[in-house]
């Protein structure tokens, strides 16, 4: 009800400020793209031999893929004015579940992949049920799952990782298509499979958010829940669905990460949710809901991957890395929102 900001009755006076704001929202992506290019140039200058190489770009994209997939789900969640703090924990739990499903003698990648996807989706559904039908605040419900998921990951194999190195489709050398190892190390025309998965999900996410009834409903629920309900949007179903989607994508993240790691570790995915949320927010999706950008999230994920790669290449110490990362994120957000500086 703090409606002074929502007051538009006096057309032109309000209009001007709000119009600027609207334009800024659009421009946000361009600013972030600029930050990305700038960081790349900085990297190219500081590490001319090793940073601006095709090999390194491929490496950064691969590294971005896991967080990227999680961030796509997170974009939908945040668009409804929700939050999912449990993606990292769900990812770890799904990996362990898939791992023990396969067992010691298993060579079936499909069992692992299906197991991980299903288990992560189930955990996401628990979140969804608690939030949409139990009316638990998303922050609390997913904070609980943050703890539960990690606990399950540790419980499933007595705190130990499960090795998945054998899941390469049964052949030596190049992993078989659609085997687990293929998702980790396989390449199609020189580009890792995990990058295709990431890009595929990004494109699908863009279409879903911007070009379908579902996506429109998601943003409507975040933008004005009451108005959405009065316009006939099935609000609860929509809220339910985004957490299920987030769980499913955590499962996809599991497959990509475990494939690359050759094992499922109960401590993996630690605090991935913070990177995912960070990427979504610097991409211009509003934490208050109602405004979401898949392209922004994509750029945000790349920015994080680029920062990490650059700082590791420069061999900065941890403490310097942490401060630098924080400053870049803060700077990127400030650059995007000049109207926030008052």
């Amino acid at each position, binding site marked *: *009800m*703090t*409606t*002074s900001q*929502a*007051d*538009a*009755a*006096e*057309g*032109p*006076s*309000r*209009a*001007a*400020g*709000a*119009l*600027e704001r*609207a334009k800024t*929202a659009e421009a946000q992506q361009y600013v972030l793209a600029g930050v990305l290019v700038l960081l790349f140039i900085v990297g190219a200058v500081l590490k001319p031999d090793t940073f601006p190489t095709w090999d390194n770009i491929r490496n950064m994209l691969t590294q971005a893929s896991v967080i990227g997939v999680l961030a796509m789900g997170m974009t939908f969640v945040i668009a409804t004015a929700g939050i999912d703090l449990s993606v990292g924990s769900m990812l770890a739990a799904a990996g362990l579940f898939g791992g023990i499903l396969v067992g010691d003698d298993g060579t079936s990648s499909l069992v692992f992949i299906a197991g991980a996807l299903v288990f992560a989706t189930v955990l996401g559904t628990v979140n969804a049920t608690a939030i949409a039908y139990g009316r638990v605040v998303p922050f609390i419900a997913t904070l609980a799952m943050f703890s539960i998921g990690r606990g399950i990951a540790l419980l499933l194999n007595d705190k130990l990782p499960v090795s998945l190195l054998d899941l390469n489709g049964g052949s030596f050398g190049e992993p078989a298509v659609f085997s687990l190892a293929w998702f980790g190390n396989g390449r199609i025309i020189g580009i890792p499979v995990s990058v295709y998965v990431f890009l595929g999900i990004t494109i699908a996410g863009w*279409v879903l958010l911007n*070009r*379908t*009834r579902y996506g*429109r*409903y998601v*943003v*409507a629920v975040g*933008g*004005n829940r*009451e*108005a*959405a*309900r*009065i*316009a*006939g*949007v*099935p609000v609860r179903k929509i809220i339910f669905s985004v957490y299920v989607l987030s769980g499913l994508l955590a499962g996809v993240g599991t497959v990509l990460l475990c494939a690359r790691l050759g094992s499922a570790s109960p401590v993996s995915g630690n605090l991935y949710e913070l990177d995912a949320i960070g990427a979504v927010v610097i991409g211009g999706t509003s934490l208050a809901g*109602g*405004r979401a950008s898949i392209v922004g999230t994509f750029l945000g994920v790349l920015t994080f991957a680029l920062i990490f790669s650059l700082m590791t290449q420069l061999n900065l110490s941890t403490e310097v890395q942490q401060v630098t990362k924080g400053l870049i994120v803060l700077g990127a957000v400030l650059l995007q929102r000049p109207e926030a500086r008052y």
Partner: protein
Amino acid sequence: MNTILEVRDLVKEYPGVKALRGVDLDVREAEVHCLLGPNGAGKSTLIKCVSGAVEPTSGQIRFQGEPLPAGDPAGSLKRGVATIYQELDLVEDLSVAESVFLAHEPRRGPLLDLDKMYRDSAALLARLGHEGIPPRAKVGALRPAAQQIVSIARALSGDVRLLIMDEPSAILDGSEIETLFEVVRRLTGEGVGVVYISHRLDEIRRIGDRVTVLADGATAANGLPATTPTDELVELMVGRKVDQLYPDRPVGTDKLLLEVKDAKRLPAVRGVSLRVHAGEVVGLGGLVGSGRTELLRLIYGLDQPEEGEVFIDGERLPPNRPDRAIKKGLGLAPEDRKSQALVLDWSQTKNVTLADLHRFSRLVLNIKTERARAREQLQQLQTVPDDPDRHARLLSGGNQQKVVLARWLLHECRVLMLDEPTRGVDVATKAEIYRIVSDLAKAGLGVLVVSSELEELVGICSRVLVMREGEIVAEVAGQDATERELLRHAVAPTDAPVLAEEVE
């Protein structure tokens, strides 16, 4: 009498827009100075300049002979300029007393003096004739009308020399408006100057001393007497003559569209039955708090009813399922457009099509068709600006209402329910909305209108139902209805008469 506020040649420019292009205003001590003008004329910008919320580009504002510091709300307040904004700027989670004393809480040492806060706010509310509002209640739990009273109490909590009221009566009903006027008269009696903004021309004659008319960011007439004829004022405001405020009264058919049987949800709705036929506009009158809005919510399925059934075309609607009600042809334009009807950061197009996306959706949405169809509807309603991509936030109240109407036109709904359809809408747009409602009825829709403006119900309805304390207590045929009769039904018979001249 001394001039307390003197505004000279005030200009305010936003990038690309000139909101004020030279405004003059003189307000005297102990007078009620009415400020008139269509939406977008610059009224809000003007008062924001005076209250310090906005810094003018150029021009002079002198208060009690001294220049007011520009863009300094605290400074304006300290000198005795208090403002009640059109939109309630209250924090819902605070208590009434906390809201009244927000940012100037009485303190004892470093601690809040809660006792004093409760005591003083109770005294202020009593001064406004609203002892009934508990100082400890949460603001969010109050009806808008009561929230308005809290806003006024808050403005009065300091030492006020000039009180600016932006459409204070928009959400009040007859008796509450009278109480408000009492308060205003008392304040002017104490020598306070009041700037009063309203779209209701009749109020100006009842409370105003002088009138200033703004049009298009400039002063069209400065300090006219309040007795200036309505036609003249309207002409000044819109720059042309408004031919006819109310269209021909639609006559209903026998075809039953909506039937409500014994709808009940205590305490607001205590068993209501009503029927709406094709081609008629049914009014729902009554005081604020008589259960009208709650009834609409029950019919629409937004709240779970305790008892009762709703039928459309003889088919029963499942309770608490607005999506099913919409599918059956029901539409609702809610009371508060901004918080209940629109996604403000969305374009007009997206807001229009929200209830009908399935039309444009195969696997993906056909954005082009969507836009074209939305535009058709918007153009038919003469929404300005004619820009389907314009954000809803940037539209005036009247045009926002048209966007909501366009949504239900696109949906081709059978029964349209309008809750306070002209609240915060200027005279010219009001006339347009009345015409639209009338046309819809003539096209065979059933329309159910809730309004606190009795004149409006009298003007457009085929029938008017009057609600009191959650029940329908009277039905009056449109052509026989008078404001007086409706008001008589609306107030409880045991109550003291609300208006002096109503004594019979």
